[in-house]
């Protein structure tokens, strides 16, 4: 009897044990949000929006001196290594004209990062309507996200020309894998439509960390200019100028790129923001300790002397003290030999194998880089008012020649405190003014990642790049096909694997 009792209690216990947890097999991720419970309130929209903006600073944050994230956020300078402004061993193959579908680096990162950000935008736009925000609030979210989407499509289409254009959230539907590359003109139309929506719906205020109307208009100007649509470019830039929400920063040219001067800075129109210890960049020590990015003498020699004349003609230039009496923007942007860095020791290029002889200083506080692995939080300035003035001058000069507004735009930049360069000579021809504007643009925006796209727009890449000899003695070349990059080889392989015959490699590769 006792045995039967004991056994039956075991049986009951075992049944309970196995049956106790009926829902045991329904497990949801405890540390991530399931899509079924997301998009319920405004906080969800804010979370997703932060995720979208995070792509402006992604990648370039690795704590070692590795090469990850170059080209984005505080690593944007690396784009200059594809031009006559700088050299990077990491991208010498692209710079020297041997770009291939498998070359990797920027060629792959630009493609994948852009599409990651675009997909985040599309997901946002597809779902934000579910929340039930007020109409006003909803349009503002949409406007901000459409601006971001336009930014990344613009980067894509400048580099790759025709690109796959999707404005809907991608699902597992196999039809999505059969898309072909959309003609660049259509992509540009979409970009402009996003940007004008953003410009019309975003608040018309100074920049505060979120894109504002001025940000959208600034990028619209860039798009028009890249299309050589000077009329619209000038008009759009003029709208920004006349609305008066932005102005040149008077607190010092170099401080535009260092943290204390960046909050509420009237010149900054868009930036990738950093904050230690959560969102930091390695800029200070990476640009200081490694020679992986070096400005070239071509750039350094292009800075005028204080009298506004080039070093070839200025009496102020002394080859023995080549960096004295120069445009102040030189020493604010380039670390020259002998200048103290790493907390107080003189910069000797050979000591770190900087064969070009210079290091980057823009957005870099090399004195803070006393040890490997310091964290930097200066914002990366993507768009600033000086750029808008330069774009206006460029467009207006093409439409009307060097009128007073063109002179004013350039001279305002040259005359600002801490730069104090003399105004441009009067009565320049349109062609001379074009040269002056291009020169001013190179100097003012040096190492900010603009010049590669400027050369592309001016169609000077094919002219200037083949004249460059790299510090490793290699002569650069620029085959014309390089004006558009190949998409990563994996994209072609995947298209083949899924039978996407509509998707083709960029011509020439």
């Amino acid at each position: 009897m006792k045995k039967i009792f004991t056994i039956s209690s075991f049986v009951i216990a075992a049944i309970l044990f196995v049956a106790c947890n009926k829902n045991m097999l329904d497990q949801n991720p405890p540390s991530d949000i399931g899509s079924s419970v997301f998009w319920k309130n405004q906080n969800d929209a804010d979370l997703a929006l932060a995720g979208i903006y995070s792509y402006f600073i992604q990648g370039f944050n690795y704590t070692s001196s590795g090469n990850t994230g170059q080209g984005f956020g505080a690593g944007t300078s690396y784009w200059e290594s594809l031009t006559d402004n700088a050299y990077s061993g990491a991208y010498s193959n692209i710079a020297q004209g041997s770009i291939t579908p498998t070359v990797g680096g920027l060629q792959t990162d630009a493609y994948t990062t852009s599409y990651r950000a675009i997909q985040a935008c599309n997901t946002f736009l597809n779902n934000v309507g579910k929340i039930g925000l007020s109409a006003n609030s909803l349009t503002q979210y949409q406007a901000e996200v459409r601006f971001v989407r336009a930014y990344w499509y613009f980067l894509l289409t400048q580099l790759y020309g025709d690109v796959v254009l999707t404005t809907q959230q991608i699902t597992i539907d196999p039809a999505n894998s059969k898309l072909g590359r959309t003609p660049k003109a259509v992509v540009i139309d979409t970009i402009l439509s996003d940007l004008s929506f953003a410009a019309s719906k975003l608040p018309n205020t100074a920049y505060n960390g979120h894109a504002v109307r001025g940000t959208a208009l600034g990028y619209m100007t860039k798009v028009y200019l890249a299309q050589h649509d000077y009329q619209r470019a000038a008009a759009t830039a003029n709208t920004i100028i006349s609305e008066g929400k932005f102005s040149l920063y008077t607190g010092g040219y170099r401080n535009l790129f260092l943290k204390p001067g960046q909050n509420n800075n009237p010149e900054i129109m868009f930036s990738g923001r950093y904050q230690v210890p959560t969102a930091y960049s390695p800029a200070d020590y990476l640009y200081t300790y490694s020679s992986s990015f070096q400005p070239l003498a071509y750039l350094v020699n292009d800075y005028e002397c204080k009298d506004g004349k080039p070093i070839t003609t200025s009496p102020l230039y002394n080859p023995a003290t080549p960096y004295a009496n120069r445009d102040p923007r030189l020493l604010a942007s380039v670390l020259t030999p002998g200048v103290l860095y790493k907390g107080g020791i003189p910069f000797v290029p050979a000591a770190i194998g900087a064969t070009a002889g210079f290091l980057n200083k823009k957005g870099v506080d090399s004195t803070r880089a006393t040890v490997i692995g310091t964290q930097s939080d200066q914002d990366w300035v993507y768009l600033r008012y000086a750029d808008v003035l330069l774009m206006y001058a460029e467009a207006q000069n093409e439409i009307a020649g060097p009128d007073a507004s063109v002179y004013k735009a350039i001279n305002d930049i040259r005359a600002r405190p801490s730069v104090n360069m003399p105004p441009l000579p009067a009565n320049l021809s349109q062609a001379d003014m074009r040269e002056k504007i291009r020169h001013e643009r190179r100097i003012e925006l040096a190492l900010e990642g603009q010049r590669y796209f400027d050369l592309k727009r001016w169609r000077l890449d094919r002219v200037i790049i083949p004249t460059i000899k790299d510090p490793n003695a290699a002569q650069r070349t620029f085959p014309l096909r390089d004006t558009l990059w190949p998409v990563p080889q994996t994209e072609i392989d995947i298209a083949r694997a899924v039978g996407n015959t509509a998707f083709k490699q960029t011509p020439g590769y």
Partner: protein
Amino acid sequence: MYFLTKSAPVRKQGVAKLLLAMKLTVALITVALTHVAAKSLSQTVTLHEKRASVQKVLSSIEKQSGMPLIIVNGHSVLSNTEPVTLDVDGVKPEIALNKCLQSQPLTYSIIAGTIVIKRKEPATAEAQPPMDVRGKVVDAKGEPLIGVNVRVKGTSLGTVTDVNGNFKIRVPNDQAILTVSYVGFTSQEVAVKGKADLTITMVVSASNLNEVVVVGYGTQRKADLTGAVATVSGSDLNKRVATDPAQLLQGKLPGLSVVQSSGEAGNEGISLRIRGTGTFSSAGNSPFVIIDGLPGNLSALDPQNIESVTVLKDAASASIYGTRAANGVILVTTKKGKEGKVELSYDYNIGVTSPTALPQNLIYNSVQYMELWNQAATNSNYPNKFTQAQIDLYRNPSNKDLYPNYNWLDAIFSTVAVQTHHLGITGGSNGTTYNVGLGYVDQPDIMVGYSYKKYNIQLDLNSKVNKWATFGGSVTLNSGERHYTSRGSQDQFLSTLSQSPMYGPVLPDGSGRYVNSVFPSVQTPNKNPIAIARNAVNKQNDYFIQSSFFLNINLAKGLDWRTNGGFNFDFNKTYDFKPVIYQYNWFAKPGDAPERSLDVNGQGIDVTDNNSFYPVAFTQLTYNTSFHNSHNLKLLAGTQVEYNKSQSLEGIRNLPFATNDLQELNAGPVASQLNNGTTNIYALRSYYGRLNYDYREKYLLEANARYDASSRFPENNRWAFFPSVSLGWVVTKERFLNNVNWLDNLKLRGSIGNLGNQNIGNYPYQETYNFRSYYNGNTSYAYPFTGTTVTSGVVNNALSNPNIKWETTRVFDLGTDISLANNRVNLSFDWYDKLTSDILETATPLTPLYYGLSAPVINYGKMRNRGIEIDAGYNQRIGAVSLSLRGTLQANQNKLVSYGAPAISTSTNTINQEGQPYGSFYMLKYLGIFQNAAEVTASPSQQYNPQPGYMKFADTNGDGKVDDNDRVIVPGAYPKFDYSFNTTATWKDFDLTVFFYGSQGQKLYVSGWGIQPFNQGSPPPAEWMNAWTPSNPSTTLPMVYILGQGNISSNANTASTYYLKDASFLKLKNVQVGYNLPQRFAKYVFMSALRIYFAGDNLHTFTSFPGLDPERVASNTRYVAHPQNRVYSFGIRATF
């Protein structure tokens, strides 16, 4: 049956018996008279008996043959007989009788159609007097064997050994022969030869059919197995000494390949593969490990506590584990207690450990190094060269400490002593037995900065509560502390190799400052490995508990109800402290500024707690029955639940600490504090069952099935069914082999079944938004809009696949087991075909980058592994020497059956292409070195503007130019076969074990530091002094270059067969010489046994692989990895 009793006992029935006997005498006479008639009546006999009494068998023979049977001297004659196992079909009665009485002290004669059984006549022994023989029976390790059967051959005399292995027996004469037999050991015959004191060493039988093997959810007699199962005993494993039991499995179990990726202490990276790489999915290829019935961690065990290890290779044996079994199952049983008085044992081993191999002949002469560098720089068109003045400083050094020829390998490698201790206590009484093992391992590493310490407690308890209930369990507690550097041992090795010989790790001025570089204008080396090893060592503490408890209740005859439950708990804490350490120029003066600070992967500290809790339980019924004496049936049915919750908590302060002396979180700067935490959960529920049936142990059938559900799959695809069936035929039990004496056992086996795989991450079918609130692995979704506060961010960054289902592996297996020559020769052979389909793969090759989303997990592709396994053993005793030989061989062929478009990996130079092995090498074919300009011009155009002295590659597609389209598939991704030999010889109190292990046909792609010249300044092997120059037209080495600089580097660094090296090897893995102190001496030191031994591990490698040890897991294309260890050890084992 009649008993003829000469002197009938006069008791109660005495008279009756006497009367009966008289009747029988009459009957006998009558029978004798009718002899002729009876003969014609004689019938054949068919008998299928299993351990039946002689009496029963004889009466069956009597019945079937129709011949009366008489036993002379009655009952007492049968009292010393052994049970009879007999399988005869339609034979003459004589044959049946022969077989029945073969090893009995009986003989028969057929007199006038009557069978007369009587005691065998004693041999011609009268002349010699009987004598007393004492002796002791021990195993190969000198441990006494209790309960060994000792018999005098040809007589009914016998005894068994006592608790100390001793026996005493009276033999009829001094020429008697003793037959010694014991379960699990080869029986042997020992001639007394007049000796009164014998020590008999028993040799473990390679294949004993009565051996019981642990199988899924139970045990089975080896004789009844139909699946492909390999097993090894703990005593066999522990012939070698290792800190991780997985190491010991190498070469012991055919079908299981064990590759140790490095000799790094506590992080050996042992890869276990059963029958090849079964899948390319993220679900992995590691077998499922079961410890005492429940899933567990093999590495957390102390090898000394292992009783046996079984590997389930085919679907038939493994499918009872359903979803977990796709890569096979390893079953581990821990040691149980032995009934009897307490036995205490102590094991100690000290192993002198050094690297098996290091890169050879690196140029650590400073002048040679600098001159070769300059030559390489010229070839590489690289401007940074050493000046003549710099070289001259070293040519005629004014101060040898300041201008050294420093060998950096000496700085980080050294010979160390590894110690292991084990204390075992075992005993039991009144149905309760216990076994306790206490282990300690102190394992310094041959690489400075690395070490491992492990404390282990193992408890086993079994108690028979009453007639129907048994309970017990085992618990393992393991505590390990590992020291290592945050980027790993390979990186330390690479950092070391990137240093040049002109300086040492610490400045020569005695200030203790760490060096950064010597001539920074020429080269800046990688991190200083000594500075890292002394200052930036990570510490990982792992506390692991695994437990298993069972209750077994015998509900009725043959019906058992067993419930087994337990949990694994793992708590793991890691400290990654990143100090600020300044590094200086080699010639720095006091007060000079540092050149840089040490790159330690950031600053501050990162402390991580990971824990996982994993409860599992099953409950099952088993029913055993036999009917009609020939049908044996075993049924099993059960259900199991599992739940796993793993959590992590991470605290970070990522700015420099005020002091490097305090290395806890709260000592770090508050301004930089970050934290992180996650939880992951999965659960499984299963039903399983098994049927075993055999007919007279001749025809065997087994069927298994498991019905599994996993939380990792969507509800509609959650459940899956994994059946298997296997058949066995014991041919030797057939009539036609009855008279074949040399063949003891021949069994044919075949099986087919399905296995599953579900190890694919926890929530792959659910669409989720991921938080990543700070930079971790280079990604963060948080964004500081205002520049003062950070907003959390989420991104849905991966496509989910709501339709995923189980990955299935179908295994077809044919095998045979053969025993010959009195079980001296044992052979096992298996052929298998393993096909994995619906492979759960992250669909990266099918997910366009323009999706902007990581690829989903999909069911995709098929992979096949086919192969054979052979296990052969031989045991023999030659005079005083007993010898045991064993060899194993496994060969496997991997093939991608279906995959879609080929996927090429340029980082590993491999391709996945249908019809080829997974991960086949894919690269250019190296042809030689261009010797002159004419040869360059004449050859198809090559990349990188080749000059004489460059490498030449083949234009395989014949389009006149060499480029990526000329890459070809090169075989060698996997070994063709692995093999091992094991010899054990015992002579008196000495024993010797020699173990070879080999692998044939695998190639490794090796490049970078240590093999290519000047990678981050790494000293090249000396052969580069003899590289190609116009005046020295080498055909094996191109012109010397600086890796990463110039066209020659691009040319020579092109992935090609030049870097593919044959990694075949044969290793003298282990040699051990042991001595067992005879008991008569041992007792003077209060021991019951004492063994001492000397052993060597990884003593020699026969290979053509250059320099380093070819035994490794190729995780990347780098040449160097933490070396394997060569160990010379001394050990002692004392039993009290």
